[in-house]
């Protein structure tokens, strides 16, 4: 047994596809471990749910940041300026009687060839009864001053400059994120240089103050870009790996081992046991797996583990049982089984110790090649909107992209990134499996 495996391992090195497949699988395993170590499970769920406005400061539908290496016209990244990070930006002057000015000036350098995607100012204020007041002004590198808005601040105030129709009107009907940055000589290009946002605040209470954050949303973000809810796709790409590997491996190993047991039992006992198992197999063959999973997802639970159990349950009696059966029929007729029976081994012992080990080598390529189909099954379910409700997965990324017309709107990265990883996982296991098949099935090796 051991010899078979070490022999197989030695042979594997002779197949380039086996080596490539193993490298891909190792890479994915490494990625899965990295994901689980750097982003703990609960943190991944929190991030993907988008709780506590964690994604407030990232742009919507931004392409990956490294796209700039290929662009001739550099697209902006997100610029964040905040009084909490930089207390110097905040200037307070006491005017007496509890009234004070609370000004802030944000200065940033803009050297991109494209316009930002959005502009927003987040304000937080501390007060008990009287709400502070803020007037916002925009100063361009060539010294023009554009008034933005005046607002009375609540405890948490979001001022979306991009959605302020008064600013749009003031700019002559141009979207603020374009108009505020446009070069007056060439309105299709942004003016490069130092921009300023000046906020003149007034507080009316002792100890009251204003904190502000300016976010100039870019068009590119992070390693993988963002989706329609501003979430960083990297989180789902990373966490999709352990989920996909776990789903694929558990489903493949679980169903093939149980199928093998059933096949061995059917052959060993024969008679009505065999008859029954074959009839159940015939029924399961015409049960449409996907519609049944859909019903389970709709009526019971969408949890990935429930789905996994159903997949294994239906997989046990699937088509594999017939090929195991024919293999075990040959095993049962070999001499050493008679010898085992002669020394008085029980049925259970014969099945587990003598029959199953004999065909395990043929089982291994089988389940390795099955892994991709289960990885894709998870993606299929997610694509139908039946993905796990909380876990970020590759399939759910594809589903989001599909429902928000990513291909139609040109957000190709949104589809290509999860698709690339799915393909990688599929190819890795399939390549290894095909090679193992040739190693363990000598009849195939010759051809």
């Amino acid at each position, binding site marked *: 047994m051991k010899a078979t495996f070490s022999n197989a391992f030695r042979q594997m090195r002779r197949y380039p596809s086996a080596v490539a497949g193993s490298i891909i699988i190792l890479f994915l395993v490494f990625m899965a471990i990295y994901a689980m170590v750097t982003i703990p499970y609960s943190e991944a769920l929190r991030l993907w749910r988008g709780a506590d406005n964690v994604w407030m400061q990232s742009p919507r539908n931004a392409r990956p940041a490294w796209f700039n290496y290929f662009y001739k016209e550099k697209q902006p990244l997100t610029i964040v300026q905040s009084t909490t990070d930089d207390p110097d930006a905040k200037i307070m002057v006491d005017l007496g009687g509890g009234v004070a000015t609370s000004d802030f000036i944000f200065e940033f350098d803009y050297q991109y060839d494209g316009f930002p995607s959005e502009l927003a100012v987040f304000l937080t204020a501390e007060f008990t009864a009287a709400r502070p007041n803020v007037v916002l002004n925009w100063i361009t590198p060539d010294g023009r001053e554009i008034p933005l808005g005046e607002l009375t601040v609540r405890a948490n105030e979001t001022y979306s400059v991009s959605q302020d129709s008064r600013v749009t009107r003031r700019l002559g009907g141009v979207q603020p994120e374009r108009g505020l940055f446009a070069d007056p000589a060439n309105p299709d290009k942004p003016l490069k240089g130092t921009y300023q946002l000046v906020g003149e605040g007034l507080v009316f209470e002792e100890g009251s103050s204003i904190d502000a954050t300016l976010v100039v949303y870019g068009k590119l973000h992070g390693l993988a870009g963002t989706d329609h809810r501003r979430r960083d796709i990297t989180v789902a790409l990373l966490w999709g790996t352990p989920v996909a590997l776990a789903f694929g491996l558990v489903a493949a190993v679980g169903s093939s081992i149980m199928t093998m047991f059933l096949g061995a039992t059917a052959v060993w006992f024969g008679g009505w046991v065999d008859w029954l198992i074959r009839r159940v197999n015939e029924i399961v063959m*015409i*049960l449409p797996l996907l519609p049944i999973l*859909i019903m389970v997802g*709709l009526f019971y639970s969408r949890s990935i583990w429930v789905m996994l159990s159903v997949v294994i349950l239906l997989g046990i009696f699937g088509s594999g049982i017939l090929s195991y059966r024919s293999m075990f029929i040959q095993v049962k007729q070999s001499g050493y089984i008679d010898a085992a029976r002669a020394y008085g081994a029980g049925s259970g012992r014969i099945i587990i110790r003598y029959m199953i080990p004999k065909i395990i080598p043929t089982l291994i390529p089988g389940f390795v090649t099955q892994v991709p189909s289960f990885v894709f099954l998870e993606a299929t379910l997610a694509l*139908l909107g039946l993905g796990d409700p909380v876990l970020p997965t590759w399939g759910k990324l594809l589903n989001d992209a599909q429902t928000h017309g990513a291909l139609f709107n*040109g957000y190709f990265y949104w589809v290509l990134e999860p698709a690339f990883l799915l393909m990688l996982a*599929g190819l890795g*296991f399939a390549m290894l499996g095909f090679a193992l098949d040739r190693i363990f099935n000598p009849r195939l090796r010759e051809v």
Partner: protein
Amino acid sequence: MQNVDTAQVESAVPSRRRFSSLNRVLKYVLVRGLTLLVTITIGVYLAILIANGGGYVDQMRIGQIKEEIAMQMAADQEMTFLTMQERRELEAARVEVQIQQLGLDRPFMIRSFEYLWNGLTLNLGSADYLLSDSGSRQVRNILGERLGPTLLLMATGQLLLFFSSLALGLILSRRYGSFLDKLIVTLAPTSSAPAWFYGMFFILIFAAVLGWLPFGGMIDAPPPQTTWLRALSIMKHMILPVSALLLASVFSGAYSRRTFFLIYSSEDYVEMAKAKGLSDREIERRYVLRPTLPTIITSFMLTIIGLWTGAIVFETVFNWPGIGRLTQQAINLFDTPVIVATTVIYAYLLAVTVFLLDIIYALVDPRVKIGGGGH
């Protein structure tokens, strides 16, 4: 599936006469048909049990009835003359009548057999939300409308797939070790991705980037006037889905067929035939192709079964107005009757596939004809 019903075949007295072998094939087909009927009955019943699990669907329907009656009564002017108490009693009474009318007060076990009979006879009730294009609420009509496109797409794809992978397999086995052979063997693992996956790439390349072919759908909107142009338009919309189906399975199909051909052409009787001086074509047809056919049919059957259930996502990706797309719409709208009905239809389609292939099997497998034991 590939098991010939041993008992049935063996019980017949071996005979070489033609009509007797026809007889045996018929008998085999009949037995397989009956077995499948029993199988379908159990399968559909299981589907009903899953769909009704925990009485959840019943509760949903009762809730719906209550809501409908409450709405009716709220809209009814007459009701304003009644006291609150009277109205509530009247409402409860009406709900009770509706429930009795629909038979929801009877135990589930009895109803489940009624559902089973309805499912088997394709008496599929009416949809909750979805309508057919002609405006009908009958699930049967909705499904009937969608069955055509699904069959058109899948039959085209599957037939092309079968013949192209068979032909490619033969070519490869003749040129064993050539560049083409090595290429296909290398490409075989790409078939681990399903057809919808390649479909997405095809849409990206040929519709989004190049703009040569439509993103999806079955026909231009508005549809062309003449039949000819309409057929052309449908064909144009079929190019991408059919090529995705082909690309997703043709390499592994050709690979496995090639391997079978190679294994079978190393048999002693092939050597014997060569020694007899038969031509290569003759050997291929009579000694290689013929004995591999049952295995090929079995593996093809498994591919088709995979494709049937894969059709749900496949049609969704291509916006193809078939049963798969319908299933997806029903999921989004939570239209229970339609979901259960599509499950039943898929069970039927799978069974019909299995049955048809069984007949082909009986025709090509000499063991069935001459009555030798299957295994």
